[in-house]
């Protein structure tokens, strides 16, 4: 990467205007982490594309061609990623010249928002736990619990449109909360470490889902496959901008909860006691805060948010459950919370970034054939760089000691 900085040398920023920004702060380090990850991703694209490697082997005889092809392959990949996640310029051109094709124009953005919704919701839950010193690894299981409860209310209760969907959302939150409450009460009453109990609860929920998918009333009637009934139309979250775009009311729920969580952590008494326990449990106890009650409440709240994440996908876009529902959302939520530094707005932006990389990566694979794994690797690299601010500071020669003090807040990891 770069030679290790020696104490005698003055820090030299790469670019001159950079001097201003070079006072390292959270946003700068995060931004530069994204840049570093994309650069490493570009290297991966080059070394894994046989045709590019081939011409690079002959760089001595045809330097122009080699560099051109290398640039084109990397450029095409990131271009496809951008146009798949944000906006496609060709679609924009089509709209500007003909006045039609609005749905196509906004599809990438809509898809990114759809993918971000569960990540933000589950990420908020994990972040609230982290900042209170409770390490909830069970978002995956709580997400499934929420989705199961939401689905049950979805197909079992007959209600008119407008009432049914909100009830489904509440049921989802309740289901997730119940799954979070159990590890919470176990920790408060017996001291069982929540990392272990929440992880184990993931297995319980995964297998409970597999079981329920093959029996009545969850299994789809007339099916012998492990697939659930579908959500009736009344229970589905309404689309925000017409049926052509999948972005739905789940996004509004997520945004409202980001705002709510911001208020909660900064302004409410309960949020304050959460924070105190997170910063120093002993000080909190001395100040008269019931740490056991806080633990139960945090895990329940965290579970409710994860349950909402499962409900948002189920009632917003998927409409049925199958084995392994939720994919990696429960675990990506942990990275999203870390990347967002456990702050609600941070989680929102981290969720959007992760979703954009997922959706953009899909388009990249569809257009260029570069595997989706590259997007996953980029996500992981971003988090790795954010977790090692000293490295970022060295690479970019950032001034100031602020970067050195940036740490991922995973208090309570050791229990």
């Amino acid at each position: 990467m770069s030679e290790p900085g020696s104490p005698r040398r003055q820090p030299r920023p790469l670019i001159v205007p950079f001097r201003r920004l070079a006072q390292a702060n959270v946003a700068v380090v995060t931004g530069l982490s994204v840049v570093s990850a994309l650069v490493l991703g570009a290297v991966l694209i080059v070394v894994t594309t046989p045709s590019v490697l081939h011409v690079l082997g002959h760089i001595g005889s045809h330097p122009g061609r080699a560099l051109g092809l290398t640039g084109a392959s990397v450029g095409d990949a990131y271009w496809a990623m951008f146009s798949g996640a944000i906006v496609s310029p060709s679609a924009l051109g089509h709209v500007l010249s003909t006045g039609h094709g609005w749905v196509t124009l906004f599809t990438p953005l809509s898809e990114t928002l759809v993918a971000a919704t569960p990540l933000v919701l589950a990420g908020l839950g994990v972040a609230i736990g982290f900042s209170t010193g409770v390490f909830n690894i069970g978002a995956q299981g709580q997400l499934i619990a929420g989705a199961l409860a939401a689905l049950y209310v979805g197909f079992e209760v007959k209600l008119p449109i407008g009432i049914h969907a909100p009830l489904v959302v509440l049921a989802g939150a309740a289901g997730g909360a119940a799954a979070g409450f159990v590890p919470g009460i176990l920790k408060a009453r017996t001291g069982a470490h929540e990392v272990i109990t929440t992880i184990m609860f993931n297995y319980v929920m995964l297998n409970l889902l597999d079981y329920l998918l093959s029996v009545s009333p969850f299994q789809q009637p007339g099916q012998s496959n492990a697939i659930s009934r579908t959500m009736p139309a009344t229970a589905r979250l309404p689309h925000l901008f017409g049926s052509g775009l999948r972005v739905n009311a789940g996004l509004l729920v997520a945004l409202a909860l980001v705002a709510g969580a911001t208020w909660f952590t900064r302004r409410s008494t309960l949020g304050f006691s959460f924070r105190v326990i997170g910063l120093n449990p002993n000080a909190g106890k001395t100040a008269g805060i019931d740490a056991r009650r806080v633990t139960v409440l945090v895990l329940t709240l965290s579970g409710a948010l994860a349950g909402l994440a499962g409900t948002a996908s189920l009632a917003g876009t998927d409409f049925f459950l199958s084995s392994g529902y939720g994919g990696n959302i429960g675990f990506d939520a942990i990275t999203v919370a870390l990347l967002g530094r456990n702050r609600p707005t941070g989680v929102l932006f981290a969720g959007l970034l992760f979703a954009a990389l997922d959706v953009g990566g899909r388009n990249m694979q569809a257009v260029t054939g570069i595997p989706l794994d590259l997007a996953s690797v980029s996500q992981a690299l971003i988090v790795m760089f954010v977790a090692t601010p000293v490295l970022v500071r060295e690479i970019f020669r950032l001034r100031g000691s602020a970067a050195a003090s940036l740490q991922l807040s995973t208090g309570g990891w050791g229990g």
Partner: protein
Amino acid sequence: MAMNDLSQTGLACRALRSRGRTKVAAVLAAVALGTTSFAASTASASTYAVGKRVAPARVAHAKKFLACEVTDTGGINDRSFNASAYAGLKAAAAADPGISYKFLSSSSTSDYQPNIADFIAEKCGIIITVGFDMADATQAAAKSHPNQRFAIVDYTYTPAIKNVLALHYDTNEDGFLGGYLAAAMSTSGKVGTFGGQDIPTVTIYMDGWVAGVRYYDKVNHKHVVALGWTPAKKRAPGSFAGNGLFTNDFTNQNLGKQDAATLMAQGADVIFPVAGSVGLGAAAAVKQAGAGHYMEWVDTDGCISAPQYCSLFITSVTKGIVPSVEAATLSAAKGTFHGGNYIGDLANNGVSLSPFHDFQSKIPAKVQSALVALRSGIISGKISTDPNSYPAS
């Protein structure tokens, strides 16, 4: 304490992630191992086209027919139906140079709809989807895009959809032959099977296989016991319900190793795993068990898909996903595509036992000729493949 928690978390996360994309593994593989696994997957998706910045694929494939596959959460290298469907696309491209192909992987069920939508936008000539999980997404896309051609592996629609070719395989028929052969080759008098998940596309194999073992016992007055699958006594016609041994996983080879070891500990000397790449773990266990222990592979010819274990494979109980996806793709490229339901069985060679390879000389001629007679008996309907038609040993 802190380190303990860290490592436990990491392990558990990875274990849980094995169902979907293994991001942790991807990072380790790509960064630490010098990008080898990553390179392999890129090479397999070598449709990469360098062209103009805007939509290079469309420029490159303007005159070509593009065949596209959306995988389910098992991924493209599952050594099972995702991989087989992709092999079908490759075979079609080899037969017709005008065809190019690509795939999109799904990390969760939420990816099915957008992945299909991406390929519709890419103007794919045919989109192959895989498994019952994607049935609803495929049906919805087919309805909203009536001119887009689809094929779905391992599913049937009632009623049939005119722009979807649903491919279904009666693998209980060749499973029956595999079970008969396993019973004939067993010296311990016990044979065993296990599945990846208790779903019909898996249990149909096990069910036919157990029927074959029971049929062998009945006609030869033997008492070979089939372990790992007990068909339900009372069930609806066409159902393959029962109780059995399942890994609930199609990727974790350790589970295959354990289940094979369990069956062998109970005395089985022929193992039939129906669990995709989990079967490789079973093969490792069978190899470890040494002489006198054999296997039958599933889905594809094991001597081609897992040649390192060819010497263990008596035969493979195969399912013709590759030829049927190839045929669907070629017909779509030629413009002769017809939607509807296709059922692969012994009669149309949609399912079959693979060649015996190393076992060609070890299987008694009497058994080989019995298998030929059985095959025509099943095709004509004289021999039932329902295990409940025969007494259990």
